């Protein structure tokens, strides 16, 4: 319950901080950090424009996409306090329920019959396929390290003792951050602010969405960032009391948003055909974590 509230709160400013960081880095003043939230509220009040090619799939896709992200959020814990849904292997559910959202956002894009949206859909399907093994290897190594198989138990049992475990947690944080970038189609893979449809991934998929639907999709994007931020925070929280943990959570989320903003300011987008290789690198980092976990648990003979 606690995690739900905190994630929603963090989601309100996360994207705003990214945009603000980017503006300041490029010498502009930039909008306030709650501007994305205001944009969404404005969208929720609008009517809608639908393409004449679309069918019922296009109508339900944004809803299901949002619902899948929301249900995934319910699984994420906050330190000792469980998520609303918590069971052994809940991270499998987490990944797969995000999968159903992805399925619908892809077919929603295909429903418009536009060549550009098909392009984005194809890229999204490919990248998410490559990103998924990294997540599962990572969670497998954490399960190996702690002996548990649910988010909450793993995170509360994750004691950062030796220096090698700090290294592991740091690497895990990097993996989660990059997965968050892939899931949200952010900079090194996709430029959300590009003006050329040919080079977009996520943005081009939602070209035809408008009004309430677009609001849902954007909100889901904000939530996704905060969800991954919360997971990263959980890696380090251990058994710190809530009095310290909650302020630290917001500081950490703001810091992550700042990091994303800095990456987007000072890095160029990869060429499209390099993206897949980059994502496969992610899996190798998580394999490194797996071997690190093997070392710590003394399974190497």
């Amino acid at each position, binding site marked *: 319950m606690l995690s739900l509230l905190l994630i929603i709160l963090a989601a309100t400013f996360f994207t705003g901080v990214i945009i603000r960081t980017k503006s300041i880095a490029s010498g502009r003043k930039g909008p306030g950090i709650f501007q994305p939230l205001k944009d969404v509220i404005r969208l*929720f009040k*609008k*009517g809608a*424009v*639908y*393409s*004449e*090619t*679309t*069918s*019922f*799939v296009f109508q*339900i896709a944004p*809803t299901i996409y949002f*619902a899948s992200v*929301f*249900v995934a959020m*319910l699984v994420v814990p906050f330190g000792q306090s469980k998520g609303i*849904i918590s069971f*052994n*292997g*809940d991270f*499998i*559910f987490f990944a*797969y*329920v995000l*999968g*159903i959202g992805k*399925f619908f956002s892809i077919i929603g894009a*295909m*429903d*418009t*019959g*536009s*060549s*550009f949206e*098909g*392009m984005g*859909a*194809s*890229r999204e*399907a*490919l990248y998410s*396929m490559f990103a*998924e*093994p990294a997540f*599962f*290897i990572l969670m*497998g190594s954490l*399960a*190996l390290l702690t*002996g548990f*198989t649910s988010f909450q138990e793993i995170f509360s049992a994750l004691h950062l003792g030796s220096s090698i475990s700090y290294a592991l947690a740091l690497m895990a944080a990097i993996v989660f951050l990059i997965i968050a970038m892939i899931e949200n189609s952010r900079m090194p893979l996709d430029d959300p602010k590009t003006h050329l449809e040919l080079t977009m991934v996520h943005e081009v998929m939602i*070209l*035809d969405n408008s009004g309430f*639907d677009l609001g*849902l999709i954007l909100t889901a994007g904000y939530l996704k960032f905060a969800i991954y931020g919360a997971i990263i925070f959980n890696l380090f929280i251990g058994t710190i009391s809530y009095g310290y943990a909650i302020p630290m959570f917001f500081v950490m989320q703001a810091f992550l948003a700042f990091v994303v903003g800095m990456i987007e300011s000072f890095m160029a987008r990869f060429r499209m055909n390099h993206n897949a290789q980059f994502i496969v690198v992610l*899996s190798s980092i998580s394999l490194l974590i797996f071997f690190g976990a*093997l070392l710590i648990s003394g399974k*190497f003979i």
Partner: protein
Amino acid sequence: MNLVRGFILIPFIAICLIPFLRMKGNAIAVYTAVSLNAILTGTIAFLALTGNSYELTLSGSLISGPIRLQVDALSGWFMLIINFAFLTGGFYGLFYMRTYKDQPNNLALHGILFVLLHTSLLSLCVIQNSIAFLVAWEIMALSAFLSVIFEHEKIATVKAGINFLIQSHVSIIFLMIGFIWVASQTGSYDFGAIHSYSMANSTELSLMLYLFFFIGFAIKAGFVPFHTWLPYAHPAAPAHISGIMSGVLIKIGIFGILRMLLLINLNYTIIGTIILVISLISGIYGVMLAILQHNLKKLLAYHSIENIGIIGIGIGLGCIGLGTNNLVLSAMGFAGALLHTLNHSLFKSLLFYTAGNVYQATHTLDIEKLGGLVKKMPQTSMLFLIAALAISGLPPFNGFISEFILYTGLFSSIPHALITSLIGISVTIIGLVLIGGLALMCFTKAFGVVFLGNPRHAFHHEVKEVSFYQLLPLYFIAALIVIIGLFPKVFLDLMIKPVQLFTNLHQLPFISFQGNGIEPLLSVSFAGWIFIALAFLIFGIRKWALRGRRITVLPTWNCGYTAPTARIQYTASSFVKTYSKLLGVLFLIFKKEKEVEGIFPVAAHLETHPYDKLEKWLIDYPTTNLKLFLDRFRFFQNGQLQFYILYGIIFIISIISIPLIYDQVMLFIGFLNKL
């Protein structure tokens, strides 16, 4: 005894009647026979699942010895799956086959084969005598072959059928070697003899014996590299036969593998590893090729290979669990395999039936020619979507439940595993995840290109939804898919007895799916409920928020281009272009290309034909070489009668003289020995 009489009498009467009936009577006779037998065997099967096994010994013949019939929990589970598939598939077939009502003789034959296929499949689950088993197996293979070549006026269909026939018989050879091996050592054809033989001999010998059976059954199941018949036979058959073949016919291979596991005493870790490796390869290779296919049914056929891989992963894990005394891994492995067998038979047959609807409406299965069907065939699209979501293993549908069971087994055995099994576990997890991701890509492509967007091809006939009765069985299947996803407990309880059969092999104390980290299945269905409730809630809010607002309908945004045609849509090939380029090394794609050239370009075109690299190496090369070799003996067949008579005489003389010469040689050797 009376049950067996009824079981044989019902199809017999139907088969005798069918040739004398007209179109409608034929359909009624077939369906009545199938449903009567389904009720009869379904009851026994259900009783077996609740713990009351049924056993009976027939007197048999002089050669075969007494024939034992046994319905245990494993047979029960498979018999229920077979019956459900035939009831829904048969009903669908009644309406699907109406298109062919100008071929009454062909239809009568088809009806007879349908009944025979049902009867033989059910008997295979029951018979415990190798000779009777092989006879039933042969009936099944032949009736399946003749059902596949229903449209025998097409050359491609007959070719596919013959491919299937030959590979079925290769499978029978392997089974026969296994059965004869045991019979020659023990003198009995009873399945019990296989058990006692393997108990009396070393595990290495049992492993060899098991591998013969495994290869025989794996050809039927379609494990890579024995899969090459599948992508030809499935598209060639009528839709309901494809559905039944993919749903239950290949599952009889899985049944055989499981049955032999129960009979043969093995080193379970070794056999588990072998099955696991083959299954992982099948799973990933199957779906990787499926993505490239342009023919909808061929795409689905490759997906069957993938799903057989997932089932095999479950069996492999279960065996490894047995070998390492890991109760959770073993129970979850076998439970996952059995549940996925049911799940796959549901969503795959649903996919084939909807593909059949598409074929009936458009007369083509070429994905690149379809598109925009969701507006013409909304119900078919909806059903296809449900099956596509389920086969991609997404919650809250049934595919997710069986995959989740496998994942639970894997993850829960991580903490206690040793280094070697840890590597195996992590490779399996990566494999399963990749399969899931690739399946998602494949089915977003299939659904998106076939049903969404604008039509890519102008058909000269009206494209319309099929009749309600034809859709009715499809709704039943879809309902069961959702029910398994939302109430998995009911089905898990039914699976306790079959899973116990396997855990008992190693005296593992498996009682029910509770405790030991198995409970999350309830929470998973609960989470599924939350997801559905939330989706409906948000959709309601959306509806409420949009009421009274201005809704405009305009053309799709084309980045400023104002005259879009259907041809600028993303095609299936372009959807998977990046993917096929990235993994191009693994595929064999034949290309025919004419590029755009010059200042005033004329029409250009690009054609791609994906082909199976393994098929090229394992089937095509050996067959061409064998052909070349056998061509050298062509001169024997010179068409002159005199020569043929000569061959006959030489044959007869050698038959008579070889024993005589042998006796003389033995006499001579005896004489030498005496010296």
